[in-house]
């Protein structure tokens, strides 16, 4: 298993380099202009100088190699410097990947935004899983019962109604219609400056997370509960379940030990493959609730043609997707003894 993992990790290096190059080409071909948002009174020759100062006058492959050097060499060295105080080479004057719009290092921007995204989107994923697994199990065990029918209906709603609709709907219900002094009133704008120091600020944090988490949890739970139900149904009709009953096991053991454990194999894979999306942030939901997370950062970057920012963010998402694919494969090997990686 270790050999397999190491070999797969080795293969990810050329894969990721190729991905980064493709992202770079696509962004380079995009017809956007980093000076496009500047006032129209700026004369064209000044614009040209601004573009030259961003390095846009050099050929594409030079810019790509520069980005590679900044991202793969300078940024990790800088991280070491910040974490452990080790200084290798020129610590002060080292060129980092810098956002064109804000002139601050992209990695710092991402580090600032990460906690909000992980809290809100990550929590919604956890809540979604916690809702989805029991719903899937009960729906499958009592197939076509009223519980199953309602579960199916809610899943269909979660699947088909977009988050920009459910998000706005929740805002209308909990922030607009609900009186301000009610306990059920929830803030529609996420306050990033809030620091959790005591109980009341914790409650406030929970309240401002509630709506974005609900919106995303509904969407995640809809998907995962369908996988869970299908996988359970598949396993419930297997012969080994009859064997378990013939052994005289309690129905609870039959269901939770035999059927659920086997049904979790594909579901765990789906969950693992969904985790990069958590880091990616839910672009639309973050926008609706003004959560300044990674999704919002990406949107701002795209709007301002901030190519280093978009390039780096997109590449980091690619890294996560490749890594979690590997994680899913390895988990599969652990969960299913029939699969061996040699």
């Amino acid at each position: 298993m270790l050999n397999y993992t190491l070999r797969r990790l080795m293969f990810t290096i050329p894969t990721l380099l190729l991905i980064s190059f493709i992202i770079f080409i696509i962004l380079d071909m995009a017809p956007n202009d980093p000076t496009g948002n500047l006032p129209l009174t700026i004369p064209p020759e000044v614009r040209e100088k601004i573009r030259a100062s961003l390095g846009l006058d050099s050929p594409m492959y030079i810019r790509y190699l520069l980005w590679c050097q900044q991202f793969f060499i300078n940024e990790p060295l800088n991280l070491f410097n910040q974490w452990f105080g080790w200084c290798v080479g020129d610590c002060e004057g080292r060129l980092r990947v810098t956002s064109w719009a804000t002139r601050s290092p992209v990695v710092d921007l991402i580090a600032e935004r990460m906690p909000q995204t992980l809290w809100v989107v990550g929590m919604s994923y956890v809540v979604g899983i916690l809702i989805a697994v029991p719903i899937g199990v009960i729906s499958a065990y009592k197939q076509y019962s009223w519980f199953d029918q309602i579960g199916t209906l809610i899943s269909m709603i979660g699947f088909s109604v977009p988050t920009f609709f459910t998000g706005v709907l929740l805002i209308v219900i909990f922030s607009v219609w609900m009186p301000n002094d009610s306990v059920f009133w929830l803030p529609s704008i996420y306050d990033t400056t809030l620091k959790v120091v005591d109980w009341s600020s914790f409650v406030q944090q929970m309240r401002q997370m509630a709506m974005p988490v609900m919106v995303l949890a509904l969407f995640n739970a809809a998907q995962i509960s369908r996988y869970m139900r299908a996988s359970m149904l598949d396993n419930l009709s297997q012969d080994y379940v009859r064997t378990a009953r013939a052994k005289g096991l309690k129905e609870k053991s039959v269901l939770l030990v035999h059927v659920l454990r086997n049904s979790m194999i594909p579901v765990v894979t789906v969950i693992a493959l969904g985790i990069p999306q958590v880091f990616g942030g839910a672009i639309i939901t973050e926008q609706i609730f003004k959560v300044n997370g990674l999704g919002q950062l990406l949107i701002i970057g795209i709007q301002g043609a901030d190519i280093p920012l978009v390039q780096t963010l997109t590449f980091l998402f690619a890294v996560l997707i490749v890594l979690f694919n590997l994680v899913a494969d390895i988990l599969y090997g652990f969960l299913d003894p029939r699969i061996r990686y040699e």
Partner: protein
Amino acid sequence: MLDENKPRKKPLVQVKNLKMHFPIYRGILKRQVGAIKAVDGISFDIFEGETLGLVGESGCGKSTVGRCVLRLYEVTDGSIDINGTDIATLSGVELRAKRPEMQMIFQDPQASLNPRMTVGSIISEPLDEHMIMTRDEKRERVGELMDAVGLARRFADRYPHEFSGGQRQRIGIARALALNPKFIVCDEPIAALDVSIQAQVVNLLEDLQQKFGLTYLFISHDLSMVRHLATRVAVMYLGRLVELGDAETLYMTPRHPYTQALLSAVPHPDPAQAGNIERIILKGDVPSPANPPPGCTFSTRCPRAQAKCKQDSPKWREIGEGHFAACHFIE
């Protein structure tokens, strides 16, 4: 003579008028429009220590009978008396308490073992559930069981997919034996194995029967194997028993026309003799169990059928010493 007054051997299992109908639902509202009569009113006894063979063609309801007898299905009607308790009406908890006495060996040794459990945990799981034992006692018991079925003890930590078909069936047998059952339903235990392995497994089943005093209900479509193994044989057609008797008597002098046709299909081991056997070829297909023909269910294919057969259902009656059949024309 004193022997004549001696009561017959005690029946361990008494099945009376067993019915298993699977409902058919149709249409938008899923209304019940009929039922598949997989088992339609059969009765038989199984005596302690014997093997009752249950034969019949595919789809006649043999496996359903086996599963009903252990109440792996909720039976539609009838009573199943095992060792003095009618298990057809037991509640969930009482039924589970009864499970150690009755066990089953399944047809497909691959699918019937949980792929995510090691052999050791598959065999010891019934012990966790029904007995209070320490870890060491359990390990020892698993070892004993693996010895009894001829598996090396060091295989306990392996997974089912790492074994051959015959070995997997041995795991299934060890699992069934774990709780010292009295009665085991063998549901086509050899059908998924190749011929050389079949013989090993059948011999193992015979050895275990002698060693532990087991009673078997042996379900199979392999007539020669049933003849070899069974004390008595029951023949099933379309959800009903047509004939039941001592294995030798039944094979030598089958009385029911269906049994005669079935036995005439057994290949002869000597090719020189094989041409001399007169085969009874049945015409037509087995009718649907959802809509069985009126009267005798075999009347649509029976070479001896007459008008009476299409109207009256023949009675299940004793036609000789412990020999039962259901046909109007047996004297």
